[in-house]
């Protein structure tokens, strides 16, 4: 096409479907059920380290050539040195990833999606309410806020976290660290106890009711199984949180991750472009089909 052509394709553009290679440098078994692992990656091409700058809440398409791709939230904060993904084995691609060992190379495309509104949250109290693997995407924001370069710009930080059993609690070492910090209130619960566990027993919504955070100058971030989210939203509303004060992150079946393939929409919004982070206020205005 000439410069007068109707098609706006003058500049050569790079291939957005081409994954960048990253080497697995660490695998952490997170769950006693052995179905959830954190993969820590390092870029094969050192250039990519500077070029891949993500914000808390974004995701990437992880690629195994021969199996396919899966959208996984980035669980590491941009303040941490290496990219981390916490992956539950669920289908073809996540099973293929779980079969990888330290030293293997996988593909990464991203960062995609929007992010948690960490600037708008400054000066406020922040309450995290997480269940099960829902902690994985929230962890990127938690570690971002708790980083010494950021912590002072946020007020009180509370973390409410629950899993099915003590063995299912993710990031166990980090949970201990959060519990020991003076500038964080950490509350934990499990659906059912096990030998050696002396902590709280009960569902996350019950924990929320017990802790009863005040909505004054507070933002609540929540993620977890759909049933938990449903009751947490009810609980937060009952405590006086307005829908604009509650933020969550959604999952959806995706393929391209860049808003072209048409698969991940809720109404006019594509979860890969306009999400995955949405406020409860935004969700209420969207069709209830997700």
């Amino acid at each position, binding site marked *: *096409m*000439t410069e*007068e*052509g*109707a*098609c*706006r*394709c003058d500049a050569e*553009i*790079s*291939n*957005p*479907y*081409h*994954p960048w*290679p990253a080497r697995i440098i660490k695998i952490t078994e997170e769950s006693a059920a052995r179905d959830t692992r954190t993969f820590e990656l390092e870029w094969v091409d050192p250039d990519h380290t500077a070029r891949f700058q993500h914000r808390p809440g974004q995701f990437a398409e992880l690629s*195994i*050539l*021969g*199996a*396919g*791709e*899966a959208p996984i939230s980035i669980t590491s904060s941009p303040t941490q040195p290496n990219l981390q993904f916490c992956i539950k084995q*669920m*289908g*073809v*691609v*996540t099973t293929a990833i779980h079969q990888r060992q330290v030293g*293997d*190379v*996988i*593909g990464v495309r991203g960062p995609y999606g929007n992010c948690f509104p960490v600037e708008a949250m400054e000066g406020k109290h922040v309450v995290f309410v997480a269940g099960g693997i829902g902690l994985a995407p929230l962890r990127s924001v938690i570690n971002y806020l708790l980083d010494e370069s950021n912590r002072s710009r946020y007020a009180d930080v509370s973390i409410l976290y629950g899993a099915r059993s003590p063995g299912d609690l993710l990031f166990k070492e980090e949970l201990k660290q959060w519990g020991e910090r003076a500038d964080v209130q950490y509350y934990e619960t499990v659906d059912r106890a096990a030998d050696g566990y002396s902590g709280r027993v009960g569902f996350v919504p019950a924990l929320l009711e017990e802790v009863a955070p005040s909505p004054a100058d507070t933002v609540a971030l929540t993620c977890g199984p759909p049933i938990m989210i449903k009751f947490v939203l009810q609980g937060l509303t009952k405590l006086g949180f307005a829908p604009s004060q509650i933020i969550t992150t959604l*999952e*959806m*079946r995706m*393929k*391209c991750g*860049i*808003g*072209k*393939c*048409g*698969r991940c*929409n*809720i*109404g*006019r919004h594509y979860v890969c*472009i306009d999400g995955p982070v949405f406020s409860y206020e935004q969700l209420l205005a969207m*069709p209830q*089909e*997700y």
Partner: protein
Amino acid sequence: MKDRILAKTDLASFLDRLLKRYRVVAPVDQGEYSLFRPLQRGEEVCLDYLKPARSAKEVFFPQNEDLFYFIEQTQKCVEPESIEKETVLFGVRPCDLKGIEAQDRLFLAGAFQDSYYQNRRKHTILIGLGCESPEASCFCHNFDIDPRGSTVADLFCVPIDNGFYYVSVQSKQGEALAGDLQEAGAEHAQALEETKRRPLKFSAERIPLEELPGALADRFDDPLWEEIAMRCLGCSTCTFVCPTCHCFDITDETHRGVGRRVRTWDSCAAPKFTLHASGHNPRTSNIQRMRQRILHKFSFFKDNQGVISCTGCGRCVAACPVNLDIREVLSELLATKT
């Protein structure tokens, strides 16, 4: 840039001259319909059918496209060769040109641009073709489409009297193609004006589409969708023949450790389109999928890309095995708005 004329009887030899320098794609007879196909010889072009059974989108967004090739063991991938020869796409009706425009907005605009679409698009020169009379299924008169003109094309041919095409030269690349054609004279320009003034008879009244966004707003839970979806089989034919539908799948295919990552057409009408690995599916019923299709094309795409995702080409109307007519669906939605 001077406009040209081309005798209809000279079309085949014009295309033969182009074939010396370009790959030429044009409608080619397939038996009971035509399809856009690369030509070996100019005489293969077939304009017996008003338009090919599938739209021009497949020239830029093919049904199957190899994204890259790989070896499983090394996890290294290799992209396909980039396009070497320019393509001339001849015989694109205004509805399909409008479709290309809509696909340009989706694939090339926004935070990310599709390099595969862009590669084919920028190496293709478009020759549009004006319509003489619409088919029963045509309804382009509902959209901002002139059946006898389009600025999207590099050259645009309008059939005028005495067996000629008036060839509007609309870009430098178009001019490079048409340089050896006879220049259009005043009498040809007048014949063009006369042709354009002749009204075209469509089979159905114009639907007031500007009222559609209002008619679709707040209709998400309307029980009307169930009625609309009742006949639909979910076969996805409408999405495949449509110039503006753009949904696709990406899958990996391997054979003995060597494979490709391939992009293929997909459809929101397909039951597993939105199925999660967990087993959860936001759209389990055909009613939800029909609602999604209509709202996406006539509401969401307009919100996001600025144009309705439909050009009134009527292929879906002609191809649907149960005669579901989208014009009737839209009329019903408009008639029942509160």
